[in-house]
């Protein structure tokens, strides 16, 4: 199977997963006992409001018509409107995306910056104190909730780095330094636990590569050890580590929700929590679908990149 057919097949699979998620959301909201219109409007809605929402949601139509309308709207990019502000769900989510993406991006960068040197040191000094130190720190990192790391960072920074803003968000359009000073702590908070996971992965991947024959050959050829390690070793070891970056972002997103609360940042996580509190269902539905789209396609891109980079993998092989 060629690359094109592989990409096509995986894209179709990805679309199918998103379609099932959308269907599941539809079924979930419709199967809640009671009137979805009341669910949408809350307990004290007036009858005429209920009727209006019922009409808008097409609740008087047969269920299959509602379902096809829902899917058709989604494919047109119409995710409905917020009950409270009337704003389109997609533009509401897009408006809250910048802080969240910024934290995620900084978090991933931090995770890689820590994990790759950490993993290399750990693997090359296996069984020595450096290895124990790196694996222990990685282990602790994985065992802490990121929002608590955020709280501790906030406490520490307010004492030792008082010029670092501890609250809110500044857009990247206000200048890179201002932006970075607002997202560095939240980025660390979500990045550190994932640095832990990545360090372990880099370590085991590196250990595997170090025992390969070609490493020995490279050493036997008399190449400088540094070259052997970085050029032959690291390049091959990093491939599987980079693959998890896609999955990593989805995991990060979960951590960011609580971290945004800690740092008072009005991002996607705060929007989601507020919408759940206010029972703004269209936004909750839209968020779940948007996230699943991001996640599924992120994985798709990583898979395709991975297969096209790695000559050992054939597209036909079922994963």
């Amino acid at each position: 199977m060629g690359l094109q057919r592989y990409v096509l097949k995986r894209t179709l699979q990805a679309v199918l997963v998103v379609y099932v998620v959308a269907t599941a959301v539809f079924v979930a909201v419709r199967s809640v006992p009671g009137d979805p219109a009341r669910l949408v409007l809350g307990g004290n809605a007036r009858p005429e409001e209920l009727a209006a929402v019922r009409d808008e949601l097409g609740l008087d139509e047969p269920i299959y018509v509602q379902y096809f309308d829902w899917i058709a709207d989604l494919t047109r990019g119409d995710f409905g409107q917020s009950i409270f502000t009337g704003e389109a769900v997609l533009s509401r989510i897009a408006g809250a995306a910048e802080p969240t993406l910024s934290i995620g991006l900084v978090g991933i960068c931090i995770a890689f910056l820590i994990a790759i040197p950490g993993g290399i040191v750990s693997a090359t000094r296996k069984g020595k104190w450096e290895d124990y130190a790196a694996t222990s720190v990685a282990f602790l990192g994985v065992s802490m909730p990121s929002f608590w790391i955020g709280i501790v960072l906030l406490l520490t920074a307010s004492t030792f780095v008082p010029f670092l803003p501890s609250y809110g968000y500044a857009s990247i359009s206000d200048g890179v330094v201002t932006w970075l000073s607002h997202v560095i702590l939240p980025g660390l908070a979500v990045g550190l636990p994932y640095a832990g996971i990545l360090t372990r992965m880099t370590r085991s991947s590196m250990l595997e590569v170090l025992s390969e024959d070609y490493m020995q050959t490279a050493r036997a050829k008399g190449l400088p050890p540094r070259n052997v390690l970085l050029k032959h070793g690291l390049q091959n070891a990093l491939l599987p580590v980079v693959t998890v970056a896609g999955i990593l972002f989805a995991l990060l997103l979960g951590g960011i929700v609580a971290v945004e609360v800690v740092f008072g940042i009005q991002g996607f996580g705060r929007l989601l929590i507020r919408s759940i509190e206010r029972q703004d269902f269209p936004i909750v539905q839209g968020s779940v679908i948007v996230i699943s789209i991001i996640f599924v396609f992120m994985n798709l891109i990583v898979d395709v990149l991975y297969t096209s980079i790695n000559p050992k993998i054939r597209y036909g092989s079922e994963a």
Partner: protein
Amino acid sequence: MSTDYGGHGSDEATRVFGIRVDRFERLHETVTSDYKAAFGLTVVVAFVLAAIFAPELAPYDPMAQEYAIMQSPSLSSAHPLGTDSFGRDLLSRMMHGARISLAVGLAAVAIAAVVGVGLGLAAGYYGGWIDDALMRGVEVLYAIPFLILVLALLAVLQARDSLLVVTATVGVVNVPEFARLIRSRVLAVREATYVEAARAAGRSHLGVVWHHVVPNSLGPVVVQGTVRVGTAILVVAALSFLGFGVSEPTPSWGAMLATARDVMLQNLWFSLWPGLAILVTVVGFTLLGDGLRDALDPRDPQ
């Protein structure tokens, strides 16, 4: 894949809960020789005991407010971990908070293990459309980050204050993990000679699954379950930090951190203790799980 695990069926070695007793002996060895597993076990037992006996052991009522020390929350011999801004004893609140974290974590994983094992057995043993349907479901659950999935489910169920619903939801999102694990084990065991022999000897499908497949697949479930309790505790902490499941004045570690967040610059201890408790508990369960893996994993006979 080794064939040595339970290759003689379930009758030869003495078993407890489907795990051969000699593995328990190895577990004992592991715990006494592996200091990390021993530490994990100690932590888990200590926290479980503190949680169970919190009403007896806690020095104060976790809800009782002492107005005199409300303004000066600090460490003292009367309040070794200090008091919060409502004048409540933090040690007592921590001990009562442990009840919620551990109960929800353990119950959620128990739900996930029971449902997941059932589904995984069905999918792995029968294959076909059951398998396809299950694996598609798993993919869908994996397409949404854990915490966001739980939040969305809580929103749909309109039960943000119900600890029971939180527990069930955290359980449900953990189901795929167990279903996949047991499915792969079953696929490995399904074609084994002794399973074939049992079928030939006239055992029913259910009998084969129960007597041969289940005992040979439970070890990894126990290991995974132990590690997953730690993860569940992290999720529950995040949820109660966000105000789901438990609310003031009921003590829980996550909710204590939420309260602490508002006053953290005045007092470090509020935010330090609950976080450390979460960290130590999660470390404890993970180390115990790793130790159990070493002891139970039949593929690595040491």
